């Protein structure tokens, strides 16, 4: 299926958010996630299914003012 990851199109077969985050190579506690604009807490990722066209955000710390 095709999803949008951080604004870019991505083909993935992973059916839940936790699997996607792991497949991307992220340690689970080093990123924060949202699906379709809504925050998904770390413990809920494994219970958050992904479907065609979903928008996934994977965020990490950055500098800020």
């Amino acid at each position, binding site marked *: 299926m095709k999803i949008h990851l951080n604004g870019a199109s991505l083909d993935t077969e992973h059916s839940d958010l936790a699997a996607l985050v792991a497949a991307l190579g992220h340690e689970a506690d080093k990123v924060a996630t949202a699906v379709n604009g809504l925050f998904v807490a770390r413990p809920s990722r494994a219970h958050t299914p992904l479907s065609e066209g979903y928008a996934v955000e*994977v965020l*990490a710390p*950055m500098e*800020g003012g």
Partner: protein
Amino acid sequence: MSLNLYGSEFTSRFLIGSAQYPSPAILLDAIAASRAGIVTVSLRREAGKDGAGQQFWSLIKQSGARLLPNTAGCKTVKEAVNTAHMARELFATPWIKLEVIGEDDTLQPDVFALVEAARILCAEGFQVFPYTTDDLVVADKLLAAGCEVLMPWGAPIGSGRGLNNPFALRALRAHFPDTALIVDAGIGLPSQAAAAMELGYDAILLNTAVAKAGNPVAMASAFAQAIAAGRSAFHAGAIAPRDMACPSTPVPGSPFWHSGGGQ
């Protein structure tokens, strides 16, 4: 007396941003020179497992400062609330610098969305630091929403214009004598930071004026001195300005004063 923010005490009254520095090493040196106890941070889209996000995270932890994540770039209540949740999980803090931008040219806060987002986040246990204007009524509504700290702008973000409306800032201070007030944004010079502190403001938050200075480390130190000086001056009690001259040297007994030649 130390700065109290949501029950945490800080000896420094300088909050410093972590963006736009020439190098990571200069960022850390500038934070050290500022003696700031609080550093603002943000969130970015992570590109890969060895992305810049983790490098920054490792770096900023070396500063030893308390981190204040922001919701920079958010333009709606939904974006700000969800970004705050992501920041709370990632940085393991209930603190959030709440920004909801309403206009791109001035980066002026959308104060209606700001109040609504603050109400939601305070109810959810966040300790909210709202980036707001100097509007008195908005400030009152933010406090009613549960905020214990207010962060009015001095001038638009990154403009370096200083205190555009000292009258409004003075009115805020007078109306909310027991609320922690932090001037956030628009400060360009240490003298402007000192002026805000002389008004009785509790602290200063700035980024660009240090990060983009010719020598960020030296400028961080200059701001630290100015903020401390302004605070001392506020407590020392300034004289009231007057329209006409008043001789500082006692007039009686001065030679030639009858002839009108003395100063």
